């Protein structure tokens, strides 16, 4: 049976975990490796690390961060942020990522997804899809939310799957950091057109919202603020989810 993955997300800038609202007003939330190890011990099913550094120096530091996180992590690690070309993906995978997430570069060149899938296998390739609601649907946002495209998010999700994406990290820009819950309509719309796993992202604050995302077709739920800033443990979320009948991997004697 399918179980819902709980994925804490580490937004990393210049080697530190940060968290903001709608990708703005970033606050320091700790050391990435220490955070990752803590969430793993709490029963996290995977860690997503997004590099939000603004400078080349920051990006180089993020490779070291990936290595440090990898050393302590015996669960999957997805890395994204600023990935422009095949060589960037190779560097992240070499440093210790199990999967790489691509947004802007894939929009600019959908063939990149195919090239990456051919080289690394599609299970390594995550389409990071930032969506903003507009009348009648959602558009794709790129450049960490700074740019709007005219692309329909649902159409792009289907196309990206055909191009080689093995998973979709589906972020609602409108909900990110707000605690209003995942955008379930967006989730359902994308679920209808793709068969690869979907990670719901943006807006999580409560267990009920996570359960609703599962019912709407999410294979995994990603959250950041509730872990970094509100001190919820993965363990407590999971036991509440299990109590509510949502299948989750139970906490084991950790590493």
């Amino acid at each position, binding site marked *: *049976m*399918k*179980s819902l*993955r709980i994925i804490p997300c580490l937004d990393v800038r210049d080697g530190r975990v940060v968290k903001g609202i709608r990708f703005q007003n970033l606050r320091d939330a700790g050391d990435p490796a220490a955070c990752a190890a803590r969430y*793993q011990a709490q029963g996290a*099913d995977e860690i997503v690390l997004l590099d939000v550094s603004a400078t080349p120096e920051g990006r180089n530091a993020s490779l070291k961060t990936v*290595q440090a996180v*990898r*050393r302590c*992590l*015996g*669960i*999957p*690690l997805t890395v994204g942020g600023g990935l422009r070309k095949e060589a960037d993906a190779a560097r992240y*995978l*070499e*440093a*210790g*990522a*199990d999967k790489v997430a691509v947004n802007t570069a894939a929009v600019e060149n959908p063939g990149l997804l195919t090239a990456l899938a*051919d*080289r*690394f*296998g*599609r*299970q*390594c390739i995550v389409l990071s899809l930032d969506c903003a609601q507009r009348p009648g649907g959602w558009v794709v946002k790129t450049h960490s939310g700074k740019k709007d495209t005219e692309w329909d998010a649902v159409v792009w999700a289907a196309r990206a799957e055909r191009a080689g994406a*093995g*998973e979709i990290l589906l972020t609602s820009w409108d909900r990110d950091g707000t605690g209003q819950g995942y955008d379930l309509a967006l989730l359902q719309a994308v679920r209808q057109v793709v*068969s*690869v*796993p*979907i990670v719901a992202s943006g807006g999580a604050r409560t267990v009920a919202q996570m359960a609703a995302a599962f019912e709407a077709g999410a*294979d*995994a739920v990603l959250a950041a603020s509730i872990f970094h800033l509100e001190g919820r443990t993965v363990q407590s979320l999971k036991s509440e989810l299990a109590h509510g009948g949502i299948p989750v*991997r*139970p906490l*084991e*004697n*950790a*590493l």
Partner: protein
Amino acid sequence: MTQSETPWVGLIRTGAANLASVIAALERLKLRWTFIQDSQQVLEAPFLILPGVGAFAPARQRLQEEGLDMALVERFLADKPMLAICLGMQLLSEGSEEAPGVPGLGIFPGTCRSLGSAEPLPNMGWKKVHPAAEEGKFLPRKPGWAYFAHSFALLQAPEDWNAALSEHGETPFVAAVQRRQVLACQFHPELSGGYGEACLKAWFRIGAGSAAESKPLEGEAEA
């Protein structure tokens, strides 16, 4: 045990396989490792790991080009410790629906099939794994949760192998097989938390007898 007496692990580079996670898992277990350079090392390594992500055909071709395929079969016949992961496990079978006409190494019978679309594909995430037989010869003997990232799998356990099973929708598939010192996992033990670590430790325990007789490579452990 001093470091020089620690048995080393040979890692095969199957093309684009992401090895960092496997290496990190070995280092957490304080094991020395080195990349396999040639077929001779495939035979000599006290422990051998055939990891793998990516596509069946290119990985198979690379094994052949480097002359490692026959050495792997020879190593199996010599009953030396071998761990195959994910695509590595599929390469040990007779072939895969993913690449019709491309033969696997045939170390165990059976051809890998698509898991079907009852659940999202690839099968990416955690699933419960349970020993196939009541008596549970598969190590570790207890059920556990393992991380999978694949679209193809063996659907029937080969005879004479201890097996652990899981399900994709209603379809049972083989999560791992083990016979003597050979363990092949469709899941990723290096990414499967405590259960994965238990699998790795069980495999090392099984192989420890024969490995103690092999000498470590001098100065080849890499950080």
